[in-house]
């Protein structure tokens, strides 16, 4: 794969042959462990330059230490998140909101949306989430002693909750999963095609809710006001698209990685099944071990950062999966200890862009694990099957066939 030339200001000794897209274990790998694969960067320097570290082959600085990622992500003035990652797929330039807005505009939209995703609001949503998990798992348990977790549980579960937010039924569930998959993992033809479908869908939904309001997220967005004015069409679209992009793949992937871990570690599986009170705590360790997202920021000015000459316009990568394996922050970072204390992991990022959906995501993961372990007896990876994992912008797992015969 061709990559852009390394910029002149990057000292050659700071360049490393590492990429979340192309390094060993990042491409689709049977029985892979992409999180362990990236942990190897901690044997090297705390910051280095990767010449190929985005979808479209751009170079980024890579921040490996948790402490340094916290510093970058907390300083939105120096490290901007406005880079139109979705719109650029269409050759356009508009922000997903609030993720790709910088302060102070960011705070205005964030304050608008925060109450919809607050811990208290999530407590209200919990019964519906649990009901959905139980219905799916009961159906799986009734239909045999094996299933594909991703296809039969993780995606239908998380996409259903997302659709519930949008006041939509499950009819088009497979279509949405397909769009999300194409957008995140598709080629240069599939990605823009999926992006166009998603934009058309959000625009159409917004128009429908303007005409006939109901009690759902898009109605809230089209009726909302910021600074005494309604949102523009572009702002409505940017907000809807972010909900779509952020809500579909990430939680499903987390549930997949978690159940794959438990399938391979029967002792931990038995422990959580017999003592379900531990699941909330254990889920934090699994979030540490198997986070899914790489955050990229753009330097707004020249800054010398921990010995790296970062220049205005440079990309700076804060990969959660790298921070979460930092030995300076976590004792024995590559050991999964479901009772780990002092676990201030980076799975939801740091700073003002901390994942808006983190409280909902946490509940979905915990409820998913609770109901799965309560209803499915001792499970393992089905003999002869090898779940395929992959790295990239959002880490994932596919084809997770479990067996409990």
């Amino acid at each position, binding site marked *: 794969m061709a990559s852009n030339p390394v910029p002149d200001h990057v000292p050659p000794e700071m360049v490393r042959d590492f990429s979340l897209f192309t390094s060993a274990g990042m491409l689709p790998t049977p029985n892979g462990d992409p999180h362990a694969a990236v942990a190897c960067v901690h044997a090297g320097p705390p910051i280095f330059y990767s010449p190929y570290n985005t979808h479209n082959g751009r170079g980024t600085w890579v921040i490996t230490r948790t402490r340094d990622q916290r510093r970058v992500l907390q300083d939105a003035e120096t490290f901007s998140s406005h880079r139109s990652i979705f719109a650029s797929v269409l050759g356009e330039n508009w922000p997903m909101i609030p993720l790709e807005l910088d302060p102070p505009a960011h705070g205005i939209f964030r304050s608008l949306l925060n109450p919809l995703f607050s*811990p208290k609001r999530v407590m209200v949503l919990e019964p519906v989430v649990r009901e959905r998990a139980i219905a799916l798992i009961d159906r799986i348990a009734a239909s045999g002693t094996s299933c594909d977790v991703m296809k039969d549980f993780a995606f239908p579960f998380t996409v259903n909750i997302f659709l519930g937010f949008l006041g939509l039924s499950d009819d088009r569930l497979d279509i949405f999963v397909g769009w999300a998959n194409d957008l995140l993992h598709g080629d240069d033809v599939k990605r823009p095609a999926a992006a166009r479908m998603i934009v058309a869908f959000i625009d159409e939904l917004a128009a429908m809710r303007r005409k006939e309001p109901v009690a759902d997220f898009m109605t809230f967005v089209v009726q909302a006001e910021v600074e005494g004015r309604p949102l523009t069409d572009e702002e409505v679209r940017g907000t809807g698209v972010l909900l779509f992009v952020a809500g579909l793949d990430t939680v499903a992937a987390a549930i997949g990685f978690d159940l794959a871990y438990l399938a391979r570690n029967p002792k931990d599986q038995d422990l959580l099944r017999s003592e379900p009170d531990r699941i909330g705590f254990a889920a934090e360790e699994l979030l540490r071990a198997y986070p899914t997202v790489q955050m990229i920021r753009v330097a707004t000015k020249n800054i010398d950062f921990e010995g790296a000459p970062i220049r205005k316009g440079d990309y700076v990568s804060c990969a959660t999966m790298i921070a979460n394996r930092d030995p300076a922050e976590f004792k024995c970072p590559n050991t999964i200890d479901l009772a780990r204390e002092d676990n201030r992991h980076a799975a939801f990022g740091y700073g003002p862009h901390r994942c808006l959906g983190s409280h909902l995501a946490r509940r979905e993961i915990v409820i998913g694990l609770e109901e799965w372990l309560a209803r499915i007896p001792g499970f393992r990876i089905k003999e002869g099957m090898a779940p395929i994992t992959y790295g990239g912008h959002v880490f994932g797992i596919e084809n997770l066939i479990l067996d409990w015969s």
Partner: protein
Amino acid sequence: MRIIVHHATCQGHARCWAQAPDIFKLDDEGYILPGDINVAEGDELLASRGAQACPERALEIDRTAAALESVFIQSRV
């Protein structure tokens, strides 16, 4: 013991609240209420766990004499 709340650093992770909802109170957006927290004697372990859970390092544990005094004064009011 007193918890110094660096309110501007709070980003609404709510990990303190998850540890001790009665000590760490959140606003409607899910961010910590401004103002330092005087911790009652029996709540110290729970409060320090909550403070240590903050991913942003927004909560600082203050065990100085002044902190003890402010708790003492509060308990008499």
